């Protein structure tokens, strides 16, 4: 369950990034959660294809075992971390935006 542990750490680091490092506070607002609900639906679809076909195969020793739409549940944690860190960085970069690219 090493991937499980790493996935949990990734989630925690992403939360720290949003709430402490960049202070974007996405987790406290509804915009992120509504977007995440939509994103997670597509994640289950896309990742379901990748893990179900399978394009990617996991070593059973690194995962806990439970799967959702073919994908190890750890992927939910990793996906959440990737999405939160990305959106947090995007929002943080837009803080000073007037009309610069």
């Amino acid at each position: 369950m090493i991937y499980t542990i790493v996935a949990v750490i990734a989630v925690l680091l992403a939360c720290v990034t949003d709430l402490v490092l960049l202070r974007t506070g996405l987790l406290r607002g509804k915009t992120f959660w509504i977007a995440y609900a939509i994103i997670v639906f597509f994640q289950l679809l896309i990742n379901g294809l990748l893990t179900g076909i399978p394009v990617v195969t996991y070593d059973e020793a690194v995962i806990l075992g439970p799967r959702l739409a073919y994908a190890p549940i750890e992927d939910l944690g990793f996906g959440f971390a990737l999405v939160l860190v990305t959106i947090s960085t995007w929002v943080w970069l837009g803080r000073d935006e007037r009309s610069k690219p």
Partner: protein
Amino acid sequence: MAHFTYVGILALALVAAGWLQALPGVEVFNRPRRWLAALIPSIAFVLWDVLVTQSGWWSFAPAYTLGPRLFGLPLEEIGFFLVIPTCAILSFEAVRMTLTRGGRR
């Protein structure tokens, strides 16, 4: 054709989210510096992916990828960390603009 499977799945994701750019107020592709800078954290995920792929946590089917690899990762896997975060940003911006337009924040 099967070798295009992973690329095809990424294309599917782009199609599912790419059109959001056309919504009023969604400005991602036309903010290329901000968009690409927001993808920088993905580098950490890619580096991690290189390490754990090497360690055998997961593996990629040669049958469903095109073949070329970089540090052991199929190019498609690197593409994944460009496409998926982009889709996430587009989704977030679309939700944000929809909520803002509705007069609520």
